[in-house]
């Protein structure tokens, strides 16, 4: 297996409600930015992570669409779907193709165009990441499922609504320094707790937003990275795992086993431990998710995710900064783009080029994204060489 370097990163200029930008232009903007950042004149293959362009825009077959509108047809182009983990799994597919020697330069993009439909239709599209027949049919919404994880976590470990709110406050603060982020506004714990209830105990400010956005990476070999004179940032570990599609079938409703297993595989491949990691981008689709993911990744002790965020352990300058980009909560969550953008953020940090939000001396970073209520999870560990 060959080593794999990330030599190009790109996001479209701003994430949010981009009524003036189409699905195809979004993904092309991000892909072009990554291609220019890498300084490559062609790609051998491409992947695009996207959860539900069919339900959001009526358009499927995004691989061919992207290749065509990038002027890169006839290269092989593949869409990857794994619900909210689509982008992360697309990164893994690109990694596999370079590592396996089938391609030398691979474009990995992610995109979601979510604001062309009403809130009801967006909610329906997102709900398809859960068990459509046995969860959604009976009235469970996506926030409702995470709310039930929160209630179970609160009952077992004493996690509080205030601690969950601290996740949102931290990630909004972080997004202030990210020009791409959907939100540039500070919020308070009291403000989160006063915001409208979505699914008890989750308020609207506990939830990540509906976002239009795209992100892209160029993956290649360390040898080509050197020729391109790009900083040598490598993906040194990748892991992926699945779990039951329905939350109710999980033995422990307070654990995210797929996250733990995907992280275990990535740590093992990278030969690193949780305490070695300098910063993380994780899947905070809801505030309780960040708390449970930090536990599942082994960054904090089981049940201590709430106290850790409240104590500032996961803030920039804390023991292990989490979601310095603003996370899904405040940077925005264009579903298929999220996993790709997380890796782009880690690469920027490891290049020491993250501007105002740079974590000093960051050498080793981790990106984690998950689909549904954690029925799939993918983890990448990156290192500056």
């Amino acid at each position: 297996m060959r080593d794999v370097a990330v030599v190009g990163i790109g996001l479209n200029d701003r994430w949010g409600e981009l009524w003036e930008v189409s699905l195809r232009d979004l993904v092309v903007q991000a892909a072009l930015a990554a291609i220019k950042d890498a300084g490559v004149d062609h790609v051998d293959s491409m992947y695009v992570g996207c959860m539900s362009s069919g339900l959001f825009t009526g358009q499927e077959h995004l691989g061919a669409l992207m290749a065509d509108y990038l002027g890169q047809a006839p290269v092989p182009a593949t869409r990857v779907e794994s619900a909210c983990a689509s982008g992360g799994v697309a990164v893994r597919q690109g990694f596999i193709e370079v590592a396996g020697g089938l391609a030398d330069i691979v474009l990995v993009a992610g995109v979601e165009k979510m604001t062309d439909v009403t809130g009801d239709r967006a909610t329906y599209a997102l709900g398809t990441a859960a068990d459509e027949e046995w969860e959604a049919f009976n009235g469970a919404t996506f926030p409702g499922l995470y709310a039930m994880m929160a209630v179970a976590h609160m009952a077992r470990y004493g996690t509080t609504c205030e601690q969950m709110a601290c996740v949102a406050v931290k990630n909004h603060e972080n997004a202030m320094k990210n020009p791409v982020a959907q939100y540039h506004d500070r919020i308070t714990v009291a403000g989160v707790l006063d915001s409208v209830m979505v699914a008890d105990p989750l308020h609207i400010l506990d939830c990540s937003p509906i976002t239009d956005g795209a992100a892209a990476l160029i993956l290649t070999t360390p040898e080509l990275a050197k020729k391109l004179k790009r900083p040598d940032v490598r993906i040194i570990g990748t892991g992926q795992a699945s779990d039951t599609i329905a939350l109710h079938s999980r033995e422990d409703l307070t654990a995210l086993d797929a996250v733990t297993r995907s992280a275990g595989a990535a740590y093992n491949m990278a030969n690193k431990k949780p305490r070695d990691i300098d910063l993380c981008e994780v899947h905070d689709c809801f505030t309780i998710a960040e708390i449970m993911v930090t536990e599942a990744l082994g960054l904090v002790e089981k049940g201590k995710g709430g106290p850790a965020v409240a104590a500032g352990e996961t803030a920039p300058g804390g023991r292990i900064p989490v979601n310095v980009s603003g996370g899904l909560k405040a940077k925005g969550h264009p579903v298929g783009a999220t996993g790709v953008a997380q890796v782009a953020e880690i690469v920027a940090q490891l290049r020491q080029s993250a501007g105002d939000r740079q974590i000093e001396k960051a050498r080793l970073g981790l990106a984690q994204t998950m689909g549904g209520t954690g029925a799939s999870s993918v983890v990448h560990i990156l290192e500056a060489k």
Partner: protein
Amino acid sequence: MSTAGSWREYPQRYRYEAAVCDKCGKWHFPPRLVCDGCRNETFTRKAMRRTGKILTHTVIHMPPAAFKDESPYAVAIIEMDDGPRITTQVVGIAPGELKIGQRVRLEFRRVQADGEAGTILYGYKAVVV
């Protein structure tokens, strides 16, 4: 859900039929073709006892379109006494009064009306006993 989809699921949605693994005895609801406990592929259909207890719960304040008129409503994960776990609405109690560990019984109820055709879809909801 399509008319054919709701029709083919009558046994599980209307009669609470689970598939009990012939090899390891694990109860599966809804029925499936492969046992996730032992990968056996033969099962015997049995109706679940309609009683269980609440493992976790929430109150939905922002409902999907099909449930607009019912909001706010309670949803819970219930562990049935035969073992399977389900996600369903809990009715007949003020939503804020749900508690982990509460005993419930499943009742046959109207769940939602399907799209413009207005096909009424039935299933189960839980009531606190």
